[in-house]
């Protein structure tokens, strides 16, 4: 019985490099005492968790933005992430520059977002479950076409030279520049999004759209255009997330499902549709998930599940649920 969706049987262990990293760190580091080593490793794991949180934030902020404004649960968000990573890979192969690759990935996925919204999503406006199921169909289409184009072997992206080096932090911790780069990019995009949503006219329209769409339309604002732009922005964030994520995690069939799961957990914890919730949720889930992976590898999935359970029991709307995007 062949039922697999073009995926290799083995699942990629998630924070692929954290174990290697800790090991290499332990070797290259003057070992003062066990406590010092443990503290240093803990700091490294925290930084890894923050990096993971940065990627999660890029992916989940796009997801939550689209949900907040359009009420669309885009299950193809993970597939778009993966596609972004693959496009960045091919662009880097041709152009030889990571930043160009990231840019092209973002633009290409944004364009895909425009096309999908204009051709498909608009046909089901307001039928939330139909929209959700249609994006589920898209998952198979996007993943299968990606498989046809890039094959099933795991690919990974390499950062440009100066980002491949490591920085020595006080206390003798050596940490790759590439990870810091991801953190900085995620933070910059976060600040930009915050500014866009909170301080600009566009952001005011988007936030108004979350609260009361018909009234926004009644005020003469082209809601159709806003929807298309928001969907494109969500796809762009996923695509850029894929390009950055591809430097840490491998790009392979099924990687999209892991990312989608992370994004879903993040937005449930943070509050579906809330931008600030995506920030908070990414930090919580990113850190917990990485600590779980590092210290309790067999039970790592429970580290992901635990915040979900607690949130659903205590505050089902999510930590910052109902806050306008």
């Amino acid at each position, binding site marked *: *019985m*062949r*039922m*697999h*969706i073009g*995926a290799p*049987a*083995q*699942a990629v262990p998630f924070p692929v490099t954290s174990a290697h990293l800790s090991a290499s760190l332990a070797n290259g580091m003057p070992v003062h005492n066990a406590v010092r080593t443990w503290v240093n490793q803990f700091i490294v794991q925290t930084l890894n968790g923050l990096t993971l949180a940065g990627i999660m934030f890029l992916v989940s902020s796009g997801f939550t933005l689209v949900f907040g404004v359009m*009420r669309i*649960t885009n*299950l193809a968000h993970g597939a778009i992430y993966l596609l972004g990573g693959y496009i960045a890979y091919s662009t880097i192969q041709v152009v030889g520059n990571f930043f160009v690759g990231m840019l092209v990935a973002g633009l290409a996925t944004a364009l895909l977002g425009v096309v999908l919204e204009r051709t498909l999503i*608009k*046909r*089901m*406006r*307001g*039928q*939330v*479950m*139909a929209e*959700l*199921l*249609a994006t*589920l*169909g*898209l*998952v*198979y*289409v996007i*993943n*299968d*076409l990606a498989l*046809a184009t890039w094959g099933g072997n795991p690919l990974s992206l390499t950062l440009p030279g100066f980002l491949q080096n490591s920085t020595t932090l006080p206390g003798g911790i050596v940490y790759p520049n590439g990870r810091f780069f991801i953190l900085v990019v995620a933070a910059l995009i976060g600040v930009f999004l915050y500014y866009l949503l909170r301080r600009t006219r566009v952001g005011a329209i988007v936030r108004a759209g979350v609260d*009361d*769409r*018909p009234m926004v339309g009644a005020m003469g604002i082209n*809601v159709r255009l806003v929807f298309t732009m928001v969907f494109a922005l969500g796809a762009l964030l996923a695509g850029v997330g894929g390009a950055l994520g591809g430097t840490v995690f491998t790009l392979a069939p*099924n990687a*999209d*499902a*892991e990312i989608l*799961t992370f994004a*879903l*957990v993040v937005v*449930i914890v943070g*509050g*579906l549709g809330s931008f600030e919730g995506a920030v908070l949720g990414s930090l919580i889930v990113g850190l917990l998930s990485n600590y779980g992976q590092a210290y309790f590898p*067999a039970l*790592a*999935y*429970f580290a992901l599940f635990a915040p*979900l*359970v607690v949130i*659903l*029991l205590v*505050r*089902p*709307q*999510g930590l910052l649920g109902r806050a306008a995007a």
Partner: protein
Amino acid sequence: MRPQSKVVTGAPAGQTESGTRQSLLPRLLMAVGAVVVLVIVAVLLSGGGFAGQLVTQMLVFAIAAMGVGFLGGYAGLVSLGQASMLGLGAYGVAVAMAKGFGPWTAIGISLLVTLLVALVAGLLAVRVRGIGFVIMTLAVGQILFGLSSSWVAVSGGDNGLIIPLNPSLGPLDLNDPIQLSFFVLAIFLVSAALLWTFVRSPFGLSLQGIKSNEQRLKTLGYSTRTHLYIGYVISVMFGGVAGILFVLTNGLITPTTLDFGHNGIVTLMAVIGGLGSLWGPAVGSVVVILFQQDLSLYVERWATVMGIFFVLVVIFAPDGIWGVGQALVRRLTGQSSRQPTRSIRGLPEGEPQGPGTPTDTELPEPMTERMS
């Protein structure tokens, strides 16, 4: 853009059972059709070989998809984690047998474990509705998938587990492929009969009531959450039973069966066939497995074709293949076509924000979703 006003909550609650007041002709057609299908299935199964195996797989997945169709169509909760529950049932048997239990005991243990997981996961899942429920079931499914691949000591990791021996009882020997196929057929028919009973019972009717207007049923004094909880557990048990049959027929269970792609496929089967019809998900299972098996012989990109087909079904035939078939039969027999009530269009929206607090009032959002 079609002028499609979303059914907010006050969906036509009066139109409940489209099968009860049908005239004789469609019923006769149904009966003849059922006999013909059953004969074809029996012939294919008794022939064994590739066709027999294929039909057996269709039946196995049909049971799982029926669980999704039941909960989605009648209670309005669409699950995206059924393949993981199928995997849970399968791993239950395989792990128990690896620990040295006999086949029948292992099946009992598997049922018990699936029931326990359903009871626990259900407590969380029924706290949310609509999209929240989809996400919740998907998250639970991904966690089961993660456990199956990373808890190597128990699950055998990515290599999965095999079962060395199928159960036998007196003259019934499930190691014989043809006997096993007919055993699967029997369980399928029993499952369908059970579902038929559920749906027509007061319990099934109250689930439909919850789907069309949960607030109203609460006001009438129904414990809607308990109803949905029971509905969820029943739906999961269909997945678990399918999983037991899956591992008996395949002899092997690997984490791949529990992954997101498979979870999506089982939901897809239910939706393509038609949510909320008893036989729709079974038809969906046949169609999707034919897609995978036959189309993949001719078209390398069968998954793309299947995905596009699925999107088209969602857009143009929200009642699924079964719904389209019913409409055709009605037109042919000159019956007035009635507005379907259980399609994906009527599904309540629900968000994780909404319910949850003990006093939750799932009021329809007054102003949203009305523009087209």
